[in-house]
Structure formats: structure tokens, C-alpha cells
């Protein structure tokens, strides 16, 4: 008898069953009125921005033509010189890598570097898959073009959000993630990395980025 049979056998015995359960059981229904915190599609970027700022991220709402100027200003103010960008359609469309290189930054695409090399960079610039307004969370599905390491390893993370990213509630988010093809790794980012382990003192910037800057495209 293999190990898997043993634990499963014990569980079945504990539940008073003699064989496998053939008919799938029905889990409790998600009672939306008590579960949902956000009931509307209206004003999601604004709600998201408010929540994200409460979670200590910096948020700027910009028109597409203002983005590059704001980005350059932020990078200079934070002494970021070497940058990694995910190979995302949005960032390509905005031609950020080319423009940043022309401006004197050292901007590389994720496809051009190694995971090991990522540790040398000052800042990771990414788009997001979704943005959950309820919690102010950036949601990133990992793929070859969008390695989650880009928003983890460099000490500063810049994310660029567009209107189609926003979802109202966590209920909507998980329903959407369920219908997305094959379950990829997903990370939800809700602020800079932090700890309160030593005497409950809040320290920002432990193992992940110490600063998260968001640009919401209008």
C-alpha cells in the first residue's frame, strides 16, 4: 500500500466512509451581501488609489503623455539608474525602454537579463494583470514575459496601471483568476515589504521593495 493510500484511508475512516466519495459535495454558497465590500464598477481607480495609499504605496494618476516625464522625475529623485522592465505589451506600446535608454538610464528588458543579474538593478518597472480596488492590491500572473522577480528583487518597484486592470472586490478577482486559462502563479502586492517583529516597531523594506510607486493611466 502506498503512502497516499494510508493518509487518505485514515481520513476516510475518520469520516465514516468505506470508499471514495463519487458525487462532488456542494460547498456553502458565497453570500455576496456579507462578503462583498465593493458593489460597484464606478470610480474604481479612485477607490484603488485611496486604498493603495493607505497601504503606503505612492500613487500618481497621469495622462499617457505625462507618464514619461513623471517616471523620469521619480527615478531621478530616487537615484535609480539601472532599470528592468517586464516584456509586457503595455510597456512596449509606451516605448518606455527605448525612451529611458535615450534619456541616459540603463534600461533592460526582463528577456535580456538573468535572474541572477536582476540583483544588480535599482528598480523594476512592470505592468499588472489586475488591480483589486477593495484592497489596493496589484495582481501579477507570472509568465515568461512577466517574471514576478522583477517586482520583488530590485529595491524599488514602479507599476503602471491602465483602466482595464481594475476589479472591484476580491470576490471578482478570484472569480476572474478561476476563469483565466491554466492556473499560473499569482502574487498580490499590497504595499512595500514590511515587518513589525521587533517590539511591534514598523520597519518598511525588509526582503522585498522598500518603495512602490504606481502610475495610473487616465
Amino acid at each position, binding site marked *: 500500500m502506498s*503512502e*497516499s493510500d*494510508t*493518509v*487518505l484511508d*485514515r*481520513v*476516510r*475512516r*475518520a*469520516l465514516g*466512509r468505506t470508499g471514495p*466519495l463519487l458525487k462532488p*459535495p456542494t*460547498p*456553502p454558497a*458565497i453570500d455576496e451581501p*456579507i*462578503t*462583498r465590500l465593493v458593489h460597484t464598477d464606478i470610480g474604481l481607480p479612485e477607490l484603488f488609489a485611496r*486604498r493603495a495609499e493607505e*497601504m503606503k504605496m505612492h500613487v500618481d494618476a497621469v495622462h499617457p503623455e505625462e507618464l514619461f516625464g513623471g517616471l523620469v522625475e521619480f527615478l531621478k529623485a530616487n537615484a535609480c539608474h539601472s532599470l528592468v522592465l517586464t516584456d509586457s505589451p503595455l510597456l512596449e506600446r509606451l516605448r518606455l525602454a527605448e525612451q529611458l535608454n535615450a534619456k541616459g538610464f540603463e534600461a533592460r528588458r526582463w528577456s535580456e537579463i538573468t*535572474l*541572477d543579474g536582476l*540583483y544588480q538593478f535599482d528598480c523594476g518597472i512592470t505592468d499588472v494583470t489586475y488591480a483589486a480596488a477593495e*484592497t*489596493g492590491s496589484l495582481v501579477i500572473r*507570472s*509568465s*515568461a514575459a512577466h*517574471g*514576478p*522577480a522583477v517586482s*520583488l528583487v530590485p529595491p524599488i518597484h514602479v507599476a503602471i496601471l491602465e483602466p482595464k486592470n481594475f476589479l472591484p472586490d*476580491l*470576490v471578482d478577482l*478570484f*472569480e476572474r*483568476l*478561476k476563469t483565466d486559462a*491554466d492556473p499560473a*502563479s*499569482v*502574487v*498580490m502586492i*499590497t504595499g512595500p*515589504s*514590511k*515587518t*513589525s*517583529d*521587533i*517590539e*511591534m*516597531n514598523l*520597519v518598511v*523594506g*525588509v*526582503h*522585498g521593495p522598500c518603495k512602490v510607486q504606481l502610475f495610473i493611466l487616465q
Partner: protein
Amino acid sequence: MSSTIGSEPLDAHSEAFLHEAAASKFDFHSVSVKAAGDERLKTAINNAVLKQYTARQLRLLDLPDADRLRTLAGDIKQHALDYLDYYLVQLQQNVRKNGGHLHFACSGDEAKQIILDIAKNANCKSVIKSKSMVSEEIELVHTFEANGINVVETDLGEFIIQIGKDKPSHLVAPIVHKDRQSCGRLFSEYFGTPYTDDPQALTMQARKHMRDRFRTADMGMTGGNFLVAETGQVCVVENEGNARHSVTSPRVLVSLVGIEKVVPRLVDLAVMLKLLARSATGQPFTVYTNIFGGPRKPGQKDGPEEFHIVLLDNGRSEILAGEYRETLRCIRCGACLNACPVYRKIGGHAYGSVYPGPIGALITPLFQGLGNFKDLPQASSLCGACYEACPVKINIPQHLINMRRDIVNSHLNGFLERAIYRLWAWSLKSPLLYKLGSIMQKWELRRRAKKTGWVKKMPMVGSGWTQIRDMPAPARKTFHQMWAKRDHRN
């Protein structure tokens, strides 16, 4: 506040507590008396847990109906437990579909062997491990160390526990029993750097130390807050980002999770996550919520090449079979610890187990035998604060009462206690004996209270009562006597 211990570090007695707790016959009474007498420890723990407790109260107000959401969360977990066999099979199929491996382990030793074999087969020399209670339960770190595999706890609190050879004393705030001076001294010794006790500076030292480990580790280890049956994924929440490194950088990833962590659907996470961080630390949401399963896809440069889930039973299926099944709903948020007047007075180490507080008082005897931990179910005033705080509505006080019944039924209480109760029951059955007993009792107590009007000391078994309280002398006449002579005119 006691001044005699003012110069000692806050965790001065931790080692003694741990030593006593590890003894074959765990004496909760003596350890808890010592812990409760340590005023500084008590103050530190109180401050920390009250901060989390107050934040929790405030954050629950975000929810439209926190009470009913807790009921729903409890129902979801209960459903998953009632059909655990179905969901474990579903999980196993989906993990395989995602290209991962799922292993079942009956015991801690079996789990450790499975994990060691994975490490050896993949030639892993270094492990980065994120915080998980189940790994504390089976003392996984020691196994790695004993087998020459370099392992580092990457959560800041757990790292401090690891280099101090200490044990966590709270489910979510592991070093609540340590002050910054203790942490500063440990860091200075371990890194050979000048002493500092500034939390910011200490955290940056840890960050610097870990970065290279993250970059070069062969294997990442995590626990799991939830397992999603319908997608075969693990969900791990955290604030620091160290668990993210575990799932992102190393080529091998192993998640060690208890079998009771399964939820049926991805959308169940919406319910659970709305409650988890709020109940634990009073945050609306944790900084990082990692949902993962399976190895990296072709073309991906991060994420593991090899992914394993090790599902641990270690006594859980036995709990599942009995009347304490509900205790397996626990999501390890620590809200019951923060709410508990006993935990606030004695801290976590006094419970002699990795699972302290009200939930620990229940599951420790269930995991490790009632005989070894028969005092823990008594470590409660049954005030119900834990039940009120529990995000999955485990009726902890009721289960504690039931466990006290088990103690009596299995004759684990002392001979003297049994004899006294039998005597009492016998006297209650006979009016004559009862009358005689109450006259004698009144006479003796009034004799003892002659001088001050208070009974200050009682002999033998009664001494425990008067050790910490005085009792007023009984009235000259009993209620029965007064009733018999009452005025009948009304």
C-alpha cells in the same frame, strides 16, 4: 513593576521555560506561575497583543457584517473537513495536472524523510525557509541541520529565533517575548558587528544577510495558509517578502502543509483573506499574497523547476474522527491568543508547545496526548473572548469544558480530587449527612475567622484556595435556619 529583574533581558527566563516545557512530564502550573510573576515579560506581551487586538476590533468594522462572515468562513472550513477525503483527492489530481508532486505523510518523521529525499535527489545544499507553524510542529530545521543541509529561516522573527536557539511564543508574532536589546545582542554576536538595538538598523542587517542567500539557495520551503482543491494551488500570506523569494528564486520548491488547510474553491479565498489579516494583526490585507502551484512554464526564468506539496497528517485524522473535528478549522491567525486574559499574563512558552493560547490549550493535548498536557484545558477562565475573536467560530470554551470532562472520565485528575468529589456527591445524597457536614464546616470556618472575620488559611486541599484569596466568615445562621424561623405574616 518588579525592580529586581529590571537589569535582565526580557527573555531571561525563556530558556528555563523551554527546558521545563520540554521535560517528559510538563508541569504547566510551575511554569505559568513563574511566567506570570515576570512583570516585564507580562507588560511586553500585553502591549504587543493589545495592539493587535485593538487593531483587529477596528478593522472588523470594515466588513458589512463581520459576525455573519465569520459564520460563513467557519462553514466553508467545516464543509472542507466534512468532505476532506473528496477534496484531498481533487487537490492531488490538480497538483499533478499542474506538473507538481503531492506527497502524503502520516507522521512528522515521515514528512521529514520525504523532504530530505527531495533535497538529496535534487542535490540541494542550501534551503531558504519561510515561516510556518507546521514546520515548527515537526522541528524541520533541526532535520536539515543534522543532515548537513544549510537552512536559514528568512522571516525576521524566525531568523532571530533560529540564531538564538529559541522557540516562537506567538502564532504570528514569534518573538513577542524578546526586546530590542536581546535582538541587538544576538545580531552583534552572530554577525560580529557593533551592537545596535535600533529595529530599523537590525532589519537592514538581516536584509543584507539574506539577499545573497535568496540569490543562491537551491531549495525554497514554505508552509501554506490555504490549499485550493479546485486549482491545486497553495496560498501563503506574508508581509516581509521572504516567502515570495522562496517561491520565486530557488529551483526546487517544497510546501509543507497540514491536511486540514484545504478549501474547495479559489473564491473561498475571498472570504478567508478578508478575515485572516484583520483577525491576525488588524491589517486590512497582508502585503504579499502568494498563490502558486506547479513548476515554471517553458520560457520562464523565475519560479521553481520542481514543485512539491507535502501534506502532513500527524494526528489530524484522529482529531477529524472525534468530537473535536471543529478545532481543525483553525487558520492560525492568533486572534484567540491576543484576546485571552491567560495568554496575556503568561505568554506563549508557558504552554509548552508550538501552539500556545486557547487554541493551543485544545490542540496540544489532541496532538500530543491529554496525559502529558492535562493542565492546559484548565488554563482558561472560560470567559469566551477566544470564541468571540475566532474568525472561523471554533467554540473553544465549549471544547475546553468537554476536554475537562475527558480528563475526569479517563481518571487523569488526581486521586485526592476524585476522592473529595465522591465524598461530596455522597453527602449531597443524604439530607442528614449534608446538614451535619454544613454544621461542621461552619463551625471550623468561623473558628478560623475568629480574629479578623476572614478565613486566611485553610489546611490541605483548601490551602490552594486561600493561597491567593481570603474568604469572609460564614454567617452565624445558615439560610435554612433563617428560612425556618422567618416571619410568616407576609
